[in-house]
């Protein structure tokens, strides 16, 4: 993440009003800068990426699963806004994904991951140009996915029902006795 960083988000939630207000101003600038950057790369975006960018708000979506097989990375999630549709995003990777599992330094991680913020970046030059999709989750995880194609499917929820609460285990499960 280059705009909506963990450090900035932590300062945004600072107990020191001056720090929080400074971060608020910085955040607004980051939104403007990122919006301006997006406009510069939009003409090069594949149609599927434009649809992903224009058609969905993933903020506060609940992450149901994430997984990788070969050059495919799949994220399954449930949107926050009613009717809480289920979304599956399939990224066809153009490189190795990076998964940073460092928690937030302020210790305010949520026990289960929710989608906080995402960024799209175009990297490379000429024929090597491709896109990178970065996501910051509420548990502090940051995932960076270089990809050449993205597919999205949408479904009305049958399970989990809207409002279902997932309770994390506070202690590791006991190992089965020998």
């Amino acid at each position, binding site marked *: 993440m280059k705009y909506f960083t963990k450090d900035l988000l932590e300062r*945004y939630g600072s107990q020191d009003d001056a720090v*929080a*207000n400074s971060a608020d101003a910085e955040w607004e600038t980051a939104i403007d800068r990122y919006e301006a950057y997006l406009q510069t790369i939009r003409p090069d975006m594949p149609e599927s990426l434009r649809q992903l960018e224009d058609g969905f*708000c993933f*903020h506060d979506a609940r992450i149901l699963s994430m997984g990788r097989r070969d050059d495919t990375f799949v994220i399954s999630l449930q949107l926050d806004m009613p009717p809480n549709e289920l979304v599956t995003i399939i990224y066809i990777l153009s490189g190795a994904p990076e998964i940073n599992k460092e928690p937030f330094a302020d210790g*305010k991680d949520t026990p289960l991951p929710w989608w906080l913020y995402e960024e799209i970046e175009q990297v490379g030059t000429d024929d090597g140009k491709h896109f990178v999709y970065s996501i910051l989750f509420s548990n502090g995880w940051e995932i960076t996915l270089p990809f050449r194609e993205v597919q999205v499917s949408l479904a009305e929820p049958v399970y989990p029902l809207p*409002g279902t609460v997932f309770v994390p285990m506070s202690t590791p499960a006991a190992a089965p006795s020998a």
Partner: protein
Amino acid sequence: MASAPSTPGSLSSSHAAPVPTIHEAERESGPSGAVIRGAEIEMATAVARRRVELDVVVCGADVDANRRLAYQIEAAVGPTTRPEAPHKRPGPMALPHFHQSNRSPKGHTFYETNRRKAKKKP
């Protein structure tokens, strides 16, 4: 009720700041991301409203007081997240907010900043 960590923005200010007000809130459908402010309510009503998954918004000219009060409301319901900054996708009028760290009960306690304000209910 869960015990809450120390209140954000606990540094006191010396000037007489305008007192924030709490309002019923709902999110406007569509791309604006706007939060619509309804009737003014008391703290206890706000907490009760949040417990049944409804939104509230704290309004006023003093962003520090707004943030602090929004936190107090959400912390009275249970353990809260840090304030979440507005994202570009909900729309240009989206407000920062607190919610429960396990997202149950669902919903948000929004607060106004110097740049972002709730819309009055027509």
